């Protein structure tokens, strides 16, 4: 992963700041940086979102394609995640450099969606055993500025909120079934994203833990706990990342903090998404020019 090299003095400076609940950029331990979210930025997708969190820049596109349901889940559609680490983010990602990080992030995304309540997959079924919608979620990492996982999960949630899947009808004929697409392009189904979880990464620095670490802070932290929280405060995934170990008591504290921070993150994200939705077509798109 993209990382910076810090001197001992710089690390001590950051660690002492965290101890006093004052970070280098003036935030407290449980504060996020300012998040910019814009949905519907790529017109060729079924849903898309771009999220900027500090210097971290993520673009997510969701494409709905028709496929066959998985054998063990005949009346459900499914999600596929692909993460592409652009070489624009850091020269390390050139060639196949970003592949390892990409699969790690994609696996984490599979893990946080690996339960029945996050998304109603039955809605994506068209014809049991035969046809279903497959949502290809493509994550493009444009810039790394720390806290990738949180930013990506926010972007994925925003993109899923924005996703519009065309309505189809199944016609029974003597020669078999036929699928008919609705004539009205605005006749589409929306996904319910209330239970889509967001990732909160808590990095242990010294004796305290912080949320939304910058690259510099990540360099000071040896271990962090990644949890995914839904808007109702339930956890769907829990994972230790990094090469250090954690004290059991601090894990319990981090889980409580993560739940609190995650709920707040969800509610503010939902307000922003609803506000943007209300503007409708009158909204001025910022895109990549802003």
């Amino acid at each position: 992963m993209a990382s910076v090299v810090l001197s001992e003095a710089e690390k001590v400076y950051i660690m002492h700041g965290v101890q006093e609940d004052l970070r280098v950029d003036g935030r407290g331990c449980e504060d996020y940086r300012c998040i910019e979210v814009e949905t519907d930025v790529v017109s060729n997708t079924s849903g898309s979102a771009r999220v900027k969190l500090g210097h971290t820049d993520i673009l997510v596109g969701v494409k709905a394609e028709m496929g066959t349901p998985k054998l063990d889940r005949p009346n459900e559609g499914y999600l596929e995640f692909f993460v592409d680490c652009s070489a624009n983010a850091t020269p390390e990602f050139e060639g196949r450099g970003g592949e390892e990080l990409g699969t790690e992030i994609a696996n984490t995304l599979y893990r946080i969606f690996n339960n029945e309540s996050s998304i109603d997959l039955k809605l994506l079924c068209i014809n049991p055993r035969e046809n279903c919608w497959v949502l290809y979620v493509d994550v493009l990492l444009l810039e790394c500025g720390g806290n990738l996982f949180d930013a990506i999960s926010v972007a994925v949630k925003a993109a899923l909120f924005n996703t519009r899947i065309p309505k189809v009808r199944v016609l029974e004929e003597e020669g078999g079934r036929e699928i008919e697409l609705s004539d009205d392009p605005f006749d589409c189904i929306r996904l319910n994203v209330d239970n889509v979880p967001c990732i909160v990464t808590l990095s242990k620095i010294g004796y305290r833990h912080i949320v939304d670490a910058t690259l510099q802070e990540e360099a000071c932290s040896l271990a962090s706990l990644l949890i995914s929280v839904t808007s109702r405060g339930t956890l769907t995934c829990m994972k230790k990342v990094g090469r250090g170990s954690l004290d059991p008591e601090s894990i319990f504290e981090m889980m409580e903090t993560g739940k609190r921070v995650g709920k707040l993150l969800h509610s503010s994200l939902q307000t922003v998404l609803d506000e943007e939705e209300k503007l409708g077509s009158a909204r001025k798109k910022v895109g990549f020019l802003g």
Partner: protein
Amino acid sequence: MPLDHRRVPGPEESQAPLLFVPSGAKESEPPPAGAAHRDPTALQPLFEFRRAPFSGRGARGRPSDREPELSLALQEALEPAVRLARYPRAQVDVSALLLQDGGSALAAALCAAGLALADAGIELYDLVVACALCRAPSEGEWLLQPSEPEERAAAARLTVALLPSLNQVSGLLGSGEGGPPDSWAQAVRLGLDGCQRLYPLLRQSLLRAVKRRTADTQEPSEREEAVEPPVVTA
């Protein structure tokens, strides 16, 4: 080849010459949670978790299905335990091969890899002990070390790895519908308790292995093992 003038033609990361001083020169050793000073030119340790194609039930698993994730979990859980600073310019290869999945595969692999590292005489801060847990659907109880059918039917799964004498959690990986944080916290506590109960057993088996070896060869010979494949039969 045309040169890229926008980039500084130098190393991507600059490092202080102090970093290249062999860490063995200093007597003060870094604490387990502290930054382990390693020679930056040293090779990275390699951790690998592979599953035999016939290890699971049902359809033959694709080889690259979940292996990268489990390998990473193996690495992140074992790295805190190994005193990597003592092995500059060395590579420790740990490869676990899952022959038959009878449930709690990752936990078994972690225990086996920890034991194999200790058996190979690699310096460790502590042994790694791991436990798997799963929770039945619809608000069920958390079960320790589930079997394969239990694991398949479970709504949530969790693997906890512990360094028992230091009381540090070195690995944690879980997902599913586990409910509120309290329920997960309960699961972690149960898992840690399970690890503590498993610890004497692993210690005994290590002791037995050493005794057997000393009995075989009257004087203990120092053996170097570069690659040790801990075969996991869960």
